[in-house]
């Protein structure tokens, strides 16, 4: 197991967001976290790498209690891509090099530059290295931040709605990249998503959140019309078109 979460809970002063969350993620897993807006998806993700501090429970990464790891040590194990990207005035290369931050003591070493180049290459971004972030399209920017997370050489990738603001082509491309990266590098990914079709197509594990608790979790077998209806309050049918499962609201 790379990640295991035990009894995690989080609350804002006015309300409880997450209660008693338990799940594990193994090597090669692409876990999609699904649920309506406000179900606590993003909050859960942020609790996993201490961007938010959970009020109860423990998160283990390879048997190590993340509560006892420093931020720097945690950043060597977990890469994170936030939902909204804030516009830093930087080139693509520098933005990806920032992923080496947890390893850099005083100045970036040759190895850091090499890993940065490798991360750029794995996302087909070499041609953009010296372009400024604000000159890129939304899809390209999303790839840059994923490349930055990869440069951290993490075992676990956390992605907060990485496909929400992308067009159809880029949605498929980014989801595919995440799946391939996870499989090629023997890591795992926890990804919050709104698009059920994309999730069913590319993820292999699913976690349905409803009102801050886990409604269902597991492999493709949990993605039943009944479960989806209970979580989203929309009745759906799941059909296969050319062997690709598709969720259709009815």
């Amino acid at each position, binding site marked *: 197991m790379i990640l295991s979460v035990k009894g995690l809970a989080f609350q804002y002063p006015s309300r409880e967001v997450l209660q008693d969350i338990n799940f594990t993620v193994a090597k090669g897993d692409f876990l999609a976290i699904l649920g309506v807006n406000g179900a606590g998806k993003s909050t859960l993700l942020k609790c996993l790498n201490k*961007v938010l501090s959970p009020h109860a429970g423990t998160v283990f990464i390879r048997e190590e209690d993340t509560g006892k790891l420093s931020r720097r040590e945690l950043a060597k194990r*977990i890469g*994170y891509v936030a939902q909204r990207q804030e516009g830093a005035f*930087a080139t693509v290369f520098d933005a990806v090099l920032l992923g080496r*931050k947890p390893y850099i003591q005083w100045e970036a070493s040759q190895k850091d530059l090499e890993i940065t180049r490798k991360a750029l290459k794995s996302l087909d971004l070499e041609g953009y290295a010296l372009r400024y972030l604000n000159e890129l399209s939304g899809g390209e920017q999303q790839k840059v931040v994923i490349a930055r997370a990869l440069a951290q050489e993490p075992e676990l990738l956390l992605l907060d709605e990485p496909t929400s603001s992308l067009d159809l082509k880029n949605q498929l491309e980014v989801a595919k990249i995440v799946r391939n990266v996870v499989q090629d590098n023997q890591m795992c990914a926890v990804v919050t998503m709104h698009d059920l079709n994309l999730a069913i197509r590319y993820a292999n594990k699913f976690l349905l959140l409803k009102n801050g608790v886990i409604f269902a979790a597991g492999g493709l077998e949990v993605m039943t019309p009944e479960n989806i209806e209970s979580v989203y309050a929309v009745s759906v049918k799941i059909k296969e078109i050319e062997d690709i499962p598709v969720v259709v609201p009815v």
Partner: protein
Amino acid sequence: MKHKQTDAGNLQEKDSYHQYTHKKKVVILVLAFLIVLLAIAAVNAGSFNLNPLQVIQSLLGKGSDASSVVIWQIRMPRILAAITAGAGLAVAGCVMQNNLRNPLAAPDTLGVSHAAAFGANIAIIVLGAGSISSTSTDAVTINNPYLVTLCAFACSMAATLVILLLARIRGFSPEAMILAGVALNSLFMAGTILIQYFASDVQVAAAVFWTFGDLGRVAWREVLILACLVIFAFIYFLFKRWDYNALDSGEETAKSLGVNVKRVRQGGMFVSALIASVAVSFLGIIGFVGLIAPQIMRRIIGGDHRYLIPASALMGSVLMLFSDTIARTMVAPVVLPVGAITSFFGAPLFLYLLVRGYQRR
């Protein structure tokens, strides 16, 4: 996958990133060279006529008594004060703008400068540290400069600590810290107005005169204190440069990259406010350098703090040294307030850069 292979965007060769960083280093070297040139010009300029040979002789300790005094006791401390204060205010502004994620953050906007002015007013008017004298250059002098400096420093640090405490206790966001700074600014301005309203015209003149920044106020000891502090802060900021780069990508991303955002922000704000307080207490209010020098350099070499911190410091020194030399020579022997000159030349330059937009690479 297809992608555009523009010349500048291509990283086929491993060297191109080095070339790109090399250009930034060249800009930094050019700025450093500019400071040396300006310093040479400044040491030769002044109302006491000295030719370059006499200047060199004095610098080597072989000049006449009068020229030695002019060079070593008047011009050199002044030049070094310009370099250190300019660099200090500029790096302070650079770090504040990053820490608070606001391009308007600077010692002036956060209440540091006006708090210092309020302190100086208390010293001059309430505690009687100011009076009139009849020297040719300064119509008004300060009797007790140490008291004024001390009061100015105490008030500006108090303003800083109030903001930092509010941020710590109430979990202030960067926006709220800026707003708190604006509120403190107007509070101290109001306090200053009330004190001045009940003061005699001589006292008001002395107090107003203090607020015009003047690099001629410092002697070697003050320059040394300021220089030590600025060097310490500069090294501290350089150690944190990767943290600042991470902060530019947003607070959550910075945390996920291993940055202790709260601690980095408190440290950065404290150290930058400390430099600004000391500089303002010694020299009076010198506006705009802290805001403009980092903004100019951001537009020329980009937002990477590995280069932005040294470049901002050097730009601050250049602006200050240039402005002070102009201030001393334009209507010599009258010395114009350097704060006005920095704004006078800095603002148009900045407007030009704003209109032109960011330098691409």
